[in-house]
Structure formats: C-alpha cells, structure tokens
C-alpha cells in the first residue's frame, strides 16, 4: 500500500486530471498482452514533462514505491504489468514526432509514438524505418526500445537496437541524460544508449528517442510458398539463406495458424497444406526480380507445392497484415494462447520444429506455431484454457522442455519479447549465474532502491548483507539462499 499522502503528492505533481486511481482504471492497467499475469497498481499517472517524471522518481526514492513504465501494453512478457506497491507511469500520451531530419536521416520522436505512425510519416519522405513488430499498429517506440523489438523485416534489416541513435532518459536517481546523437560515429565514453535498449523499463524512463532512418527500398515483391511438410519449408529457409539471398522477410506459418488466419482474413489460403512461407524481397527492381526468381527455384527444389506472387501493393499489405494477426487469430481455437519466443540458429530451424511437435505430443497439447523463420525465431503457441489447471501445468512443463532444447541447440528462450516476469525463471539457464549477477549489480548500482520496474528480468531479493558474490562458490551460497528465484 502506498501511503495516501504520497498519492496526494503524486496527484499534485501531475495535476488531478492526470492522476487516476479509480477501481476501473486500476483494473484496466493491471495487464498487458501476456497471458495469466495481472496485478493492480495503486494508481496510474500520466506525466507531461520530463521534469514531472524526475519529480516522481525522486519521490519514489524518498518513500519507496515502484514505478512501472507503460507504452501501449502490448508486451508479451509482462514488462508493463504492475508489481506490488507500484504506480503505472503511462507514456502512451507522448505521441509527437518532433523532427524528421531528411539530411542526416534521423527521426526524433517521443516514446509514445505508435510504431506504424513513424513508418507512415517517414515513408512519405522517401525514408524507411524498418522495425515492424506484428503489433506495429498499437505498440509504442518506447516499448519497442525497452524490449528491443524485432519484426517481420528483421532478417535483412535487423531489430530495434540497430536503429536507436540517441536516447533522452530519466535515470532512477532523477537525473536526466541524453546519450548518443546524430553523428553516426561516437566512441566518447561508455556506450550508454545501447545499454538502455532492451532494459525492459528497469534502468530508466525514455522521454525522447532519436531513430536512424534509411532510404526507402525502391520496390518489393511479396510471395507465398505452400509446402506439404514443415520440414521442407524449414529446409527451404535454410537453403535461401545459404544461397546468400537476403529477403527482407521470411515468415513461417503452420497448418493450425493458417486455418485461423484464413478464418479471420479470408485470403483464400489453402487450409490443407502443412505450412507456408511468406517471403518478401525488396531493393532495386533488377535485384528484386533476380532474387525472387532464385527463391522460386529454391522453394521448388524443396518440394514447394505452389508459389503465389502478390499482384500489387494492396495485396502484399493484406498478406502481411494477416500474418501480423496470427497470434491473436489463434485464440479462435481456444481462449488462452500462451505464445513463446524461442530463437535458434537458422540451421536448427527444422530440428526445432520437429522437437516442438514431439513435445506437444508428449504432453498432449495443442500447438500452433509460426514465426520469423528467417531469424530462426519461432512462436510455438500453446492453445489452452486458463480454467484448465491441469493443462496449464502440462503447458508449463512442455515449455520448459522447449526452452531446454533451444538452449541445447545454441539458441535462446526469447528472441524479441523480453524476459519480464514470464521468462525470468529460465534466464539463469540461458544467461548463466555470473551474467545474472552482473545484471543485478548493474541494476542495484544505478537503481539502489529498486524503484524502476523491480522484479522484472530477475528477482531482487537482497537476502545477504555485504558485497555481491563474484565467483562460482560465492554464487552457489547465494543460490542456496534462494536469491535468484
């Protein structure tokens, strides 16, 4: 419980109309897009300047409450779900594009700008901001930076971190810094801005973001390749990459996902096939033609049944929009969709798909799997019902196995959705205890009172006095005390 007098102070800082604590508001800011997780905040605060944020942060340090920054709440690891004794700091109202610099190819934006709005604003000027998460029509740039979000175009263009040139951040001690800038090279001191990318709201609150833009590709071609088997589709992906062709996008959908997407979007997809690939090549017209032709040959070589090429931009957009809806469309089958985010080296795509299949069978679970195949990033999604406790527990075991398989193959437990609350239990397995200890010591040195999104990524339970453990033996002792769980 946050003391009423503290809440009053908060209300005074931002003004009454920007302070919400009705039961209805608390309930509707108790969740994000993650299944099964929710917690009521004590209040929801809508700040309007970085100074207000700094004051809130200072107050939090004085009287000990937690601050959970929130963009649109589309996150899939619980990043913006409130924690105990916390307020939600709502940033979605910070939605101005401040400057598009067509000479330096940068865009300065507020963190609450919707990703798709950046796309349309810069594309009007012949520029391009590549990161395009499936949620791009709702998620914010701030949320993207905090999660280091990927997207459909990751294969060729990379992810959010490749496009952050500068950040204005309110630090956990209330100081405000701007790290980075418009110069493309900058090695003055530690590279702080990169360090905030993917920090999941635990290290600072972004108030301005300087994005890198690139020229818009001249043209693009979008196609669908149908396969009778998943294995062949996965092998086609590896073959394309091995042939040194770099499409902007290679997305994979399995049969269950195809059926759901078709039911929603009515694209005329064949629902009898086992999998399909959505492939987009872009760039200069001649290169696009050449790459597309090569891809057709490679797909055919891997027993692709049919290849369809989008006739125009409208059709291409329809196909991609339908793919973006895949996750939500899967909820047509069963009400709870637990989506994971394992990522393996591209060569391991086919074996990983096979493993997911057999694990689903072993636990008698229904899965729909899709993902950014070109990045080796898969979204095996368990279709279940949260009211069926037994099945939820089986799903838990299944995912644990899937994570372990991924790690064994040299992969990771999350490629783009972040660790948050949902995956922190598995972080030690992939990162290792010393790495977590380092993350912890970073966190505690810049946020000693643990006011910013505490408990996300890893737990903060100061169980022992004295200095932090440095070697394996010391760490083991900590572990026995349950410090990392």
């Amino acid at each position, binding site marked *: 419980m946050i003391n009423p007098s503290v809440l009053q102070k908060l209300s005074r800082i931002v003004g009454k109309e920007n302070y*919400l604590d*009705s*039961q*209805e*508001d608390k*309930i*509707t*800011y*108790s*969740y*994000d*897009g993650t*299944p*099964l*997780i*929710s*917690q009521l905040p004590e209040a929801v605060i809508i700040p309007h300047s970085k100074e207000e944020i700094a004051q809130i942060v200072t107050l939090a340090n004085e009287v000990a409450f937690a601050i959970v920054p929130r963009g*649109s*709440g*589309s996150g899939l690891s*619980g990043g913006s779900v409130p924690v105990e004794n916390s307020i939600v700091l709502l940033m*979605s*109202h910070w939605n101005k594009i401040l400057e598009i610099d067509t000479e330096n190819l940068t865009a300065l934006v507020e963190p609450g700008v*919707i990703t798709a709005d950046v796309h349309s604003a810069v594309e009007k000027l012949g520029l391009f901001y590549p990161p395009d998460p499936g*949620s791009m*029509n*709702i998620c914010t740039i701030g949320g993207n930076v905090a999660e280091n979000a990927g997207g459909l175009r990751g294969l060729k263009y990379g992810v959010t971190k490749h496009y952050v040139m500068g950040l204005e951040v309110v630090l956990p001690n209330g100081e405000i810094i701007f790290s980075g800038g418009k110069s493309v090279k900058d090695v003055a001191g530690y590279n702080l801005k990169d360090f905030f990318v993917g920090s999941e709201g635990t290290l600072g609150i972004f108030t301005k973001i300087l994005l890198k833009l690139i020229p818009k590709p001249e043209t693009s071609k979008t196609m669908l390749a149908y396969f009778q088997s998943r294995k062949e589709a996965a092998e086609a992906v590896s073959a394309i990459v091995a042939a040194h062709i770099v499409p902007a996008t290679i997305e994979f959908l399995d049969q269950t996902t195809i059926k*759901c*997407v078709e*039911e*929603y*979007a009515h694209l005329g997809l064949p629902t009898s096939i086992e999998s399909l690939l959505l492939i987009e090549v872009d760039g200069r017209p001649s290169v696009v033609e050449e790459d597309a032709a090569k891809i057709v040959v490679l797909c055919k070589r891997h027993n692709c049944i049919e290849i369809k090429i989008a006739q125009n931009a409208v059709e291409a957009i329809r196909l991609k929009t339908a793919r973006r*809806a*895949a*996750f*939500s*469309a*899967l*909820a*047509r089958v069963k*009400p*709870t*969709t*637990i989506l*994971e985010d394992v990522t393996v080296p591209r060569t391991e795509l086919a074996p990983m798909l096979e493993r997911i299949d057999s694990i689903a069978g072993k636990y008698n679970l229904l899965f729909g799997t899709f993902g950014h195949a070109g990045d080796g990033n898969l979204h095996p999604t368990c279709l279940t019902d*949260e*009211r069926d406790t037994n099945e*939820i*527990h089986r*799903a*838990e075991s299944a*995912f*644990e196995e899937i994570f372990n398989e991924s790690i064994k193959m040299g992969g990771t437990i999350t490629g783009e959705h972040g660790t948050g*609350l*949902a*995956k*922190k*239990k*598995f972080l030690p397995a992939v990162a290792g205890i010393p790495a977590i200890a380092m993350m912890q010591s970073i966190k505690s040195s810049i946020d000693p009172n643990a006011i910013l999104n505490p408990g996300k990524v890893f737990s903060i339970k100061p169980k022992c006095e004295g200095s932090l453990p440095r070697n394996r033996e010391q760490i083991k002792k900590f572990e026995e005390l349950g410090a990392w*769980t």
Partner: protein
Amino acid sequence: MAFTDVHISTVEKKKNGFVGVDIPSYDFITNCIHCGLCLPACPTYTLTGLEKSSPRGRIRLIKAVADGDLEITQGFVDEMHFCLDCQACETACPAGVKYGSLVEFARAQIYRQQKVSWLEKGLKWFFFEKVLSSKRNLKRAAKALRMYQRGGVERILNKTGILKMLAPKMAKLQHLSPRINEKFFDESFPEVVRPVGNAQHRVAFLSGCIMNVAFADVNRDTIEVLLHNGCEVVVPRMQECCGSLQAHNGDFETARKLARHNIDVFLQHDFEAIVINSAGCGAFMKEYGHYLADDRQYSERASLLSRKVKDLTEFLVSIDFKKPGHPFNKRVAYHDACHLAHAQRITTEPRAILEAIPGIDLVDLPEASWCCGSAGIYNVVHYEDSMQLLSRKMKNVESTHAELIVASNPGCIAQMKYGLDLFECTGEIIHLATLLNRAYASHD
C-alpha cells in the same frame, strides 16, 4: 514461462456482479487474449487514450464484474455507455471476440439493476419507453415537433438562447433531431404496392420508426427502387419499431416485446426477404433469433425471420439489380455505417451498386468505416464526444470534394447533415436508395 513465480489469476469463487438472465457470456469474455490489436480501431479510445475506454479495457471491466472483483459502479456504467457500440473492434479482432454481445448484455444488466445517470435515464426513458415503443406515440411526438419546427417558436427560442439556458442537452437535441416530414411514410403508401408488369420478387419492407416519420422520402425512394426492380412490396401496417434502440440501451424486455410483435406481423405475409434501408434495424433484426433463442414459442420463427432480413444493398446485389442506363455525372463518396460495415459486414455491395451507375465518380472516403458519432442517441447524451467524432468525419468528407456523400443509415444521415451545417462544408448527404432512384429517374 514462470507460471508458478507470478500471480496467476485464480478462479476463486467470488460473487458475480451480474444477476438473473441476460448475463454477458463468460466464454466470450475469456475469448479475449488482451493483445490490444483492436485499440486503434476504437473511436472512444482514440478520444481519451485511456484503456478503460478501449474494447480490451471494457472487456476486462466486464470480466471484473463477472469475477466479483468489481461492482456495477458508476464508472462501469459510464464506460459501457460511453462505448458507441459501433463494433469496429469486432471487425478488427483477429480472435473473433463478440464484443457487441458483451457490451449489450452488460448494458442489459445495468438497465436491470437500474444504474444509469438520471439525465440519461430521463432522456432515454422519454425516448425509448414513451416515444419509440409505440408508433402512435412517436407520431404524436413527431407531429408536435413538426409544428414546432414549422412555426416560429424554434427560431425564437434559438435566437434568445432561452432553450439553451433551460436545458443545454435539450437545446442540442433539437438541432440534431431530423426534420419531421410533412407526410409520414406509412400514411402515403398502401399496404401492398405492385410493380408495373409481372412481379419477379415479393418482399416485405420495414418502414422503421424514425425512418417512417423523418425519412419518409427515403422510404419512398426505397420502395420505388424495389418496384423498378420488379418487386412487389408488402409494408405490414401493424409493424412497430424493430427494437434495436431499446436493446442497445439494455432494455431487452421492450426490445423482445417489439421483436415478438414484428415476428407475428411480418410472418402473416409471404415474402422472400424483408428489405431494410436502415443499418441499425437490419443488424438487430438479424439478431432476433439470437435474442429470442430461449423463447420456446418464438425461437424458431425468430430465426426464420432473421434469415430473411436483408439490407437493401445486399438484396439488390443478390437479385442482380437493374443498372441505370443513363449517365449520372456526380462525384460520390461512400460512408460505411457502423451497423452495416461492422455489425453486418456489408461493405462491398453498396460500393458495387454505386460503381454500376454510369457516370459516377466514386472516390475513397478516408476512414470510411470510422463512426460518425451518431450511434443511436449517443449524439444527444454524449454531445461533446459525438461532435469530436463528427468533426473528424467531416474533415474526411471535405477532403474528398464529393458532391454527394452516400450513407445507408438514417442516424448517420441526420448526424452528417448536422455536420455540414456545423462545420460549413459543401456537398449533400444522401441515402443510397435516394441516389439510385434519382439515377433511375434520370433516363425516364
């Protein structure tokens, strides 16, 4: 997936805040995976930027009441009625969540538990229970309004601002209320109208409540279009309002009463389709089967009737309507009524009809299916919000430079006509039936 680490929403049995019959379906509630993909489609979320005025937020609030975590608070009531029931979120939702049903059943619970603000209550009571629930009352009220509009009283009250001072909402109401026709529709047509020559189709026609008294000309155009297409048209005399406005307001009892009455009246006649020129009525009559599913006496006939309901555009396309022969040179933009585009998913048929008229230059209206803010009597109860939506709509309308803006719903037409005046835009707002009839006439 550290399920055990985090707070799992346990299904503890607390007291469900919804009671009796007409409870929002829990299956529909859990169907929502709170992904948020519907947020950008929601006009009210765009207005406030607050989660509680978004579809995802409202579903969560309904869930909280069902789970016993929230009572039916004033805040809950306000959000359920701040919703336009435009159902744009249903079109947007990939998971297929039936939001419209959830909000309507939540409103039914609110109505049942009598939790509405007094002003809203007063206004709505006056409208739904007094005026709209019987055609006689509606006509009486309309006659009074007609006299009042024709006489000088309106001008005087307006000019002096007395009306505004006395009751601001009422003052706005009189601007928004459609002009009452000189002659009501059903006073000017016989019960059965026959086309010249042999009838190829026999259809029934819903004259509607508001349509009947304020859009008599649109009804006349609709009938003429049907006649032109070889239809014999039955307009059952005894029919009443379809009940949609009452249902959207949560008064299921009156709505069902009206539905049962209409089922009795319409099914006395023989016809292949009930043709409807008001999107809201069509959407609701298509749901008669659903609303009367538990009524043993009526459920079967209700479904039968629902299956026969066709929007005018849907019907015309299905019978391969006659294409006007002579050019009708106009620049035209089409506005999608929410209850046509989202509730009935009819978007291609009206455009196909417009495109089939020679000479018409059909231009894209940006955000064509974004609510104009009319939404039943939303524009009266939530005047300011409604005007913001209208302003957005009229900006888009202006950008098309269209001479004619076509819609297929009386509410939208009245609202946008008001918008033309308020924002001083040019162009004419016109029902699709009227346009088509004019196009037919241009070669006769």
